[in-house]
């Protein structure tokens, strides 16, 4: 790990201030992507702005048909939160399947979304539920947030403060995990919401995306059979050691089917 300057602000304002002063500053949330990449010297921030001391970034609120999760809330807390499990069981299940128990004790929703790893789980829920990402500057609709490989709508220094998920009628998530890293090779989040059916896919492409044909098919009837024959094209999908684009395309359908079957 290269050396860096460490800051631990106690407010969002101070955090943004500390970030602005650094030449190549990074926010430190759970650190479970950033610190390993720093250890391997793949990342070289000048300053780390640790958000752990910012109380306003923490906590879970469920009211009025919305689940709001503070950016610094670890996955494990989301997974074990009874109110979340009641309101959006698929979201709790998704959080409980990220990484491993130790990752879930440290990794946070804000960190995951800011990093936007193509194989991360949360993007599927955010997009699948049509969540709103709140930052220190504005609110960003899920549909406007994911821009590409490790690329989001966030501006330099912009800090996610919370994420609000509208409670759907029902939702489900199915993930086919990379057997080594446990990241998603393909994860599909399906939701039947007031505004219609949403299907979001993670792991398969450069960033999470919606699957329109499946949304249409499920609008006619929210059953596994409805998506069983909806194929996803392989072109443009990720291809690596663990899964070819064709295999990922196939898994999109399989996971969609399973997500619908598991939806509640």
């Amino acid at each position, binding site marked *: *790990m*290269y*050396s860096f300057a460490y800051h631990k602000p106690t407010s969002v304002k101070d955090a943004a201030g500390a970030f602005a002063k650094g030449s190549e500053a990074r926010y430190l949330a759970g650190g479970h992507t950033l610190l390993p990449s720093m250890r*391997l*010297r793949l990342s070289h921030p000048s300053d780390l702005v640790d958000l752990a001391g910012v109380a306003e970034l923490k906590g879970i609120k469920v009211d009025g048909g919305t689940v709001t999760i503070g950016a610094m809330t670890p996955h494990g807390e989301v997974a074990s939160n009874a109110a979340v499990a009641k309101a959006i069981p698929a979201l709790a299940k998704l959080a409980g399947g990220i990484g491993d128990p130790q990752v879930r004790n440290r990794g946070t929703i804000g960190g995951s979304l800011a990093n936007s790893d193509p194989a991360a789980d949360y993007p599927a829920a955010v997009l699948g539920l049509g969540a709103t990402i709140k930052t220190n500057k504005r609110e960003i609709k899920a549909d406007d947030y994911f821009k590409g490989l490790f690329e989001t709508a966030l501006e330099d220094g912009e800090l996610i403060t919370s994420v609000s998920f509208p409670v759907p009628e029902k939702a489900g998530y199915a993930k*086919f995990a990379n*057997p*080594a*890293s446990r990241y998603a090779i393909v994860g599909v989040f399906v939701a039947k919401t007031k505004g219609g059916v949403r299907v979001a896919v993670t792991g398969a492409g450069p960033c999470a995306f919606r699957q329109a044909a499946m949304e249409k098919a499920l609008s006619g009837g929210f059953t596994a059979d409805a998506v069983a024959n909806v194929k996803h094209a392989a072109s443009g999908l990720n291809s690596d*050691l*663990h*899964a*070819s684009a*064709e*295999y990922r395309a*196939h*898994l999109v359908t*399989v996971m969609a089917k399973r997500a619908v079957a598991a939806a509640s």
Partner: protein
Amino acid sequence: MAENGIGARVRRKEDARFLVGKSTYTDDINRPGQAHAVFVRSPHAHATIKKVDISKALKAPGVVAVLTGANMLADKVNGLPAGWQIHSKDGSPMNEPPHIPLAPDKARYVGDHIAVVIAETRNQARDAAELVDVSYEPLKAVVNVAEADKGGAPQVHDQAPGNLCYDWHLGDKAAVDAALAKAAHVVKLDLVNNRLVPNAIEPRAGIGEYDAATDRYTLYTSSQNPHVIRLLMGAFVLGIPEHKLRVVSPDVGGGFGSKIFHYAEEAVLTWAAKKVGRPVKWTAERSESFLCDAHGRDHATHVELALDKDHKFTALKVSTKAAMGAYLSTFAPAIPTWLYGTLLAGVYTTPAVYVETKALFTNTSAVDAYRGAGRPEACYLLERVVERAAWQLGIDPVELRRKNVIPASAMPYQTPVALQYDCGDFGKNLNDAAKVVDWAGFAKRREESKKRGQLRGIGISHYIEACGIAPSAVVGALGGRAGLYESAEVRFHPTGSVTVFTGSHPHGQSNETTFAQIVADKLGIPIENVEIVHGDTDRIPFGMGTYGSRSLAVGGSALVKAIDKVIAKGKKIAAHQLEASEADIEFKDGVFRVAGTDKQKAIGEIALSAYVPHNFPHETTEPGLDESAFYDPKNFTFPSGCHIAEVEVDPETGTTKVLRFVAVDDFGNIINPMIVEGQVHGGITQGIGQALTENCVYDAQSGQLLTGSFMDYCMPKADDVPSFEVSTNVVPCTHNPLGVKGCGEAGTIGAAAAVINALLDALKPLGVKEFDMPASPHRVWQAIQNASRKAAD
């Protein structure tokens, strides 16, 4: 059975320190004044080194020294030696290109050692390592063993044309060809045995130290065999005589073969310690372990099995290409030859076997012994082709094996590939395993899986291995450059406790417990009064270490010999004190007794009188009670067994789940069943790992390691395996004093073939016939797609 004696499930002595965080692995050691080393490694798979500019690195904060291959050449440091010489078919010796620990002129794999930076802290050394400016001229690389054999392939070493290390063979080719020609059936297969990374969880580490006052070197290193390291590094690489070099291997966090070998880092640390006048410490990052630890397997093989009309095997012909990697590692040449070809008769009566192995250099990390070493490759090949034969001929795989198995009555059995099995009941292993798994009831279980949309399959692996490595004379005749005996010293202390000094060196095998059980049992003293010392060349007698399932069969036998000497001497002392003839003294349960009388002396009393020899047979006997022994095995030992796996495949995703794994093994007599079971569990999981999850992949073009971390190299985890059903079928070894055979590698040797045979059985309805490990979901799905495409054509 004594409470803590042979055969008892004694809880481990070593756990007392391991469980509370008080163990001492190499990285836990810090020496006064130590500096830290970081290696500059080649980012290229193959490149000429034009220039190494260390000027910037030398000026970096905290830097003590930067050393390169040029410094090594100036100091006349030699290459790392190979411990085994193989001769080719034409009688010529294998090609042995030099392996200078810091590459002076050419980098031959990604991770090859170019320079070492030594600084006050590890971070400073790492910071400065990035400032070493190496000018490379990249060359084309070859990483695949079959590609390395092709004309026009990049040449890893100028002195090894065609990348050939050797072209070896064994067996009667003419007889095999004749049998194949007149066979009723010939079954052919092409198989790849996937490259694996051993990945002991403790990464390798070392500290070199030099004491100018005594002109003595010390190397702390995470090794399975400190004396072997001392011999190889002292005598061959650095030219340090043994009495001036101490090698200490403290607690070792797993090895699986990968810590047998003498590595470049060890020589560099020891050499550098004198140059900088300070202890120099290095601990591998896991990414370095992936790049630079010796890997395992990596074979490409064609096999043909001949059968007569009655389905008896008449001949087996095997042609293998085996990767050596960029340089010859310590035992690399022996693995795909004497530890592989000799096992190809397996448990079958096949009268003629011929095997040829071409060993080839590739631009990768070295390939050497990894748990099982050659024998898993042999077993996998044989059991795959036997299973294929059963399928091709439409007969039950159990029946086909029964028909061809060597009967227990045929022992000792001379195979056509050099080995003579002393004992074993292979048919019983098979029958017992089939019974435990309920072979007959499988069809019903398959139906049950089918109802859930899952494909169930069952597969057998009927293995034999050669362990207890090895009779030195045989080893010497076959090209081994060392003996493979083991040593033990049993030191009785005046007040009756015992310290054993052993050349074996456990790294998870539990020798501190099993060896103490042997002592407690044989000498009749409490196990608490026995201490086992290993791992420090200044304390233990010269010994060859722990690998090849040899600790108990060879090291344990040396221990028994030393114990016998203690008892023999005790009898002399007792006879004197009890005023009886030595011939009349019996020893049992810790007591010397004049036969048929109640005149007796406890062994503790005898020990005390040996050190306070007031009433002592001075005319015939020296004081003291401290005996050592070396044991050279008379033959290999031959553990055998039958493993049966049941798997379920999700045809939609290609996911394969091992539902059951049954192992019936013959390890001869068993000292501690609890420990044996643990060894089998771990071995099976490594075999399942090879079959399902593990695969070391280099990029064919760039030669970069694509599976360089646990993010991409899939280690088996707890939910990848089931609980195992293991049992034993004891047929004592006939030629060592404990009747033991060894159990460390069996699981790994048997498991992979059982799993893949089960997978192929599951996929039968889909027409999948060809499959190479690992059965990752993607590869299984792909195989299903290919088969259905073929069926559609």
